[in-house]
């Protein structure tokens, strides 16, 4: 019985050796790099290779190394190689970062807004594989004449993101994400925030109406509020309330309210209220 078992195991070993035996492949290979698989035995055998974007079947000679070309291993992911009934798996991993896909939001943001700008990057190698190993990513946002806002992050599973404060100064901000030598720029338009301290003055127009004009309207960081922003002038007198909406033009807003002997006139833009004038009451 023992002799029979010994003969059986020897026969199994011999048949495996004749068949070409097991495959030795590394666990990981970088995308685009050639892979050489040593084989044993002799004669010819069919090799199968299945990958994320590839599949091939070919006849190879046993006894020497079988080469998988770099072109066959371009996509990151799991590969299965089958030779003479033996199979092995390995993973192709991404190479160094070559391309940065950068999503910057929003495209327009008020100045001096905390966490007002967000940036997300996806990191790819030159074969468009997501680079999953952690990479240092630098985000910066800069407006001419204002200090840069910077943030360093480390990517995780190919993604990194950051939220940054917008600059104090309005203007076209350069929002840059960089990883090593690869960098991408987006432009975020930083506009003035809500008006701050609206001041108006009044005078009598030729027809007796109340002519109102504001001082240049700025946000709290000193940025001129964009033209087109609505400013509301209101007068309340014995006959009731009159309201005029005017747009800021060249930094100021102007309007005429109906003539009145005595009125209380106020100005507002959005939620910000400016000064109040008592018309005909001594001011």
């Amino acid at each position: 019985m023992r002799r029979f078992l010994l003969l059986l195991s020897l026969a199994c070993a011999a048949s495996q050796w004749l068949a070409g035996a097991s495959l030795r492949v590394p666990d990981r290979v970088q995308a685009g790099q050639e892979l050489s698989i040593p084989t044993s035995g002799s004669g010819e055998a069919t090799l199968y290779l299945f990958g994320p974007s590839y599949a091939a079947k070919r006849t190879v000679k046993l006894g020497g190394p079988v080469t998988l070309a770099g072109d066959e291993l371009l996509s990151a992911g799991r590969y299965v190689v089958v030779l003479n009934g033996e199979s092995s798996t390995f993973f192709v991993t991404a190479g160094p970062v070559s391309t940065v896909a950068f999503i910057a939001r929003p495209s327009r943001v008020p100045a001096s807004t905390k966490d007002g700008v967000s940036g997300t990057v996806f990191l790819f190698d030159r074969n468009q594989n997501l680079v999953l190993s952690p990479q240092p990513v630098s985000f910066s946002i800069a407006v001419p004449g204002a200090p840069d806002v910077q943030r360093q992050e480390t990517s995780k599973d190919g993604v990194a993101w950051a939220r940054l404060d917008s600059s104090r100064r309005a203007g076209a901000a350069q929002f840059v994400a960089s990883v090593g030598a690869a960098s991408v720029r987006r432009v975020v338009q930083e506009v003035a925030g809500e008006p701050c301290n609206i001041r108006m003055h009044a005078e009598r127009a030729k027809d007796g109406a109340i002519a109102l004009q504001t001082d240049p309207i700025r946000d709290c960081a000193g940025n001129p509020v964009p033209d087109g922003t609505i400013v509301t002038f209101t007068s309340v007198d014995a006959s009731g309330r009159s309201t005029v909406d005017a747009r800021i033009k060249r930094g100021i807003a102007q309007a005429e309210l109906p003539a009145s002997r005595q009125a209380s006139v106020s100005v507002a833009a959005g939620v910000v209220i400016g000064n109040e004038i008592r018309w005909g009451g001594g001011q």
Partner: protein
Amino acid sequence: MRARIQVRHLLFGMLTALLAAAAPLLLSAAETGFAVILDTSQSQPRHVEETTMASVERDYGHAWHAMAAALEENKIGLLGSDFVGLAKEQLSQAIAEQSKSGLKRRYIDHGHQVRVVFYSSDGSAMELHDTVRLEIQLLDGDKVVQHEQGTFHFLALMTPAENSWKVRLLESVSGF
């Protein structure tokens, strides 16, 4: 005797009603694709809304269903619109190569446990970690040249379109 017949009729009626009620459910399971359980508790920087969660579960499962069919039948058309960009390019290329060599891949799907690890602030991209139980058969014609069964890990990037989420990248990884 008559009472027994009436009971039989009643049971038959109940069974028919039950089947009729269950039919839409069975049909919808087949239409939506493979079973996906989505965990959004670790989503960053944005929380995943319930409606989005339901859409992603449905569309990711559907995408796997489409991919399995396309790789088994070597028909790029079966990928449909579930895949876009790089994912679609890679799968289309794999199918073309398989077709050229007379090879096929068969995925027998036993369900996905999916974790949302990233959901962008503006809602334009989502990264998933998928742990899936699969049987994979690699075929030369109709002959299985390799068969394996186990737990596999996939990383997916999805982006929203008009009314559904699309798989933009799908990569098999060694683990998370």
